[in-house]
């Protein structure tokens, strides 16, 4: 009997699997390891070619001037290092007022749309979480507008919000509301663009739904027995348990807003910045600088400034994530 126990104990005290693997690893030949490395070689090369190198070289480009015209490259090939300097950053911080307009537009958009769509998509998810028949059909329908391609949604909403012949003004008129100029006036362009985002609530709604499904039913039942009403259950149990998803959505929402240019361009057509730059998003400013003005150096400076902002924001959100619930003991 005691021998048996001793043998079990001895077995348990044997070196853990990890250590055994390590000794095996030493014995393994170099060729074997290289063979394994070949499997991930594509992504290693991909990271180096399409992420690491461009990131570093982009910082380097940002200190150069580029020729205007369509055939240019960052021009140190032409002018040597003569035009190396911080002028791009000087322009960014002091001379170019469009940068601050773009930042204002982008942050206004992010600060309004991200929290609002989080709350609204949460409410929709709550509704979809109710146990009634055929709920799956509704879930699919609510998600459907998310898949509309950027170009098509631009085509669609530009027609709908057309100030003269659009259906939107028609609806307003039939509700006896004053007509709006929508995308053609500086005051209403951004709010109109924000309203369009209502139709893509489905994306975050899906994430909310899965978070709601992860809330253990037993917890809700026991809260019910303790006499907690539906609102109290929502606020004290469901919302705190959904915080990881809140956190994730918040980061991606802000970062997404800072990188948005396709939807504005397709909506506005030739006038991508909107009336009086009311829709001049920061990423659109970068796009225009790089591929319309062909000022690659300045575009890189703008992009690096954006990168710093995004990194700071992400760090800030990660720093203040004490209110995020990640499960017990994890």
């Amino acid at each position, binding site marked *: 009997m005691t021998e048996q126990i001793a043998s079990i104990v001895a077995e348990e005290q044997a070196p853990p699997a990890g250590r055994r693997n390590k000794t095996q690893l030493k014995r393994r030949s170099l060729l*074997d*390891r290289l*063979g*394994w*490395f070949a*499997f*991930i070689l*594509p*992504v*290693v090369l*991909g*990271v180096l070619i399409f*992420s690491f190198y*461009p*990131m570093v070289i*982009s910082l380097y480009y940002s200190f150069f001037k580029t020729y205007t015209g*369509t055939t240019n*490259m960052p021009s140190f090939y032409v002018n040597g290092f003569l035009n190396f300097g911080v002028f791009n950053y000087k322009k960014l911080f002091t001379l170019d007022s469009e940068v601050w307009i773009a930042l204002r537009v982008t942050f206004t958009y992010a600060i309004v749309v991200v929290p609002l769509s989080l709350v609204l998509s949460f409410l929709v998810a709550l*509704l*979809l979480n*109710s146990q*009634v028949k055929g709920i799956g059909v*509704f879930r*699919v329908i*609510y*998600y*459907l*507008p998310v*898949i*509309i*391609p*950027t*170009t*098509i*949604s631009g*085509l*669609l*909403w530009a*027609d709908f919000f057309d100030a003269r*012949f659009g*259906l939107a003004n028609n609806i307003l008129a039939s509700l006896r509301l004053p007509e709006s100029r929508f995308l053609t006036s500086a005051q209403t362009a951004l709010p109109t663009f924000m309203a369009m985002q209502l*139709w893509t609530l489905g*994306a975050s709604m*899906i994430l909310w739904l899965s978070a709601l499904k992860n809330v253990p039913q037993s917890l809700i039942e026991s809260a019910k027995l303790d006499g907690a009403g539906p609102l109290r259950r929502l606020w004290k149990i469901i919302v705190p348990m959904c915080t*990881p998803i809140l956190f*994730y959505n918040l980061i991606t929402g802000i970062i997404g807003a*800072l*990188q948005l240019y*396709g939807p504005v361009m*397709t909506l506005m*057509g030739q006038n991508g910045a909107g009336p009086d730059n009311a829709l001049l998003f920061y990423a659109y400013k970068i*796009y225009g600088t*790089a*591929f319309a003005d062909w000022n*690659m150096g300045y575009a*890189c400076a*703008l*992009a690096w400034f*954006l*990168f710093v902002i995004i990194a700071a924001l992400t760090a800030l959100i990660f720093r203040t994530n004490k209110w995020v619930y990640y499960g017990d003991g994890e």
Partner: protein
Amino acid sequence: MEKASIFKRIRKALTNCRLYLTANRARGLKLVKKGLTYCLLCLLALFFLFPFLFMFFKSVMGDLESYGSMGVHFFPQEWHFLKNYGAVFDVEFLRYFRNTLIVVVCNMVIIPLAACLCGYGFARGKFKSKGFWFTVALSTIMLPGAVTQVPVYVMFRRFGLTGTLAPLIVPGIFGGGALNIFLARQFVRSIPKEMDEAATIDGAGKFTIFWRIVFPLLKPIVIYIVINTFMSNWRDFDSALVYIGNTFSSKKWQTLALGIYYKFLIRGTTDIYPNVQMATGVITVLPIAVLFLVFQRQLIEGVVMTGLKD
């Protein structure tokens, strides 16, 4: 004595009645609640279907009606289905369509393969730098595209590849995207190790094991990646805009999303009525809408998986 029993009876009947009423009221309330839920669900469904209905109804209107100069309608007064949808398929549209198809098909083959190879390497590989490279690969998701855009453009330009479809296909060869690799790795890890280890003893090489044994088992995740690749490449506007653009020589390589942008939204000399524009939109949305409806379960699960595990 008699009186007391009568009182008792009445009281009993009353309580019974009250009990019955409250029970029924609860049932009634439940019904009302259910009805209200359905009403709300249907209203929201109409709201979310609105873009599709709007687009479809406009696509079958007559020329002037779709323009709205003679009164704006939501429902078409007259139907011109065949005429409008026939007008969609002109030479340009067919060219856009062909280009999009090339990009989509190439990526649908390349990306799942590349992602599964890398995912297999990350799941089963035995070498020291594995964890490091995995973290690095995943962290590229956080890297804003704007920072790398100009240098990558310059790189493609130096190779003479801008203005062609290559920049939309080549990056896929290098791993097929960090999220896909992550999904493939998770899936490989769920396959029992004994399966490929047994094959090693039989003397099969690593690639043979991957190709013959592991890859066929990855079918569910491969299907997800293929569908997702189709959807995202079909919809892609941003990178097509940057790498292809609208120069004289690059016009012939414009994809659907890009071509529609330059043809309808940056209006040229030919003015096309909104009905044909919307018909083009319907035709463009149709393939991905159908795919989404067929594979919605897998796609939504994938969104949740990549969203949650980030």
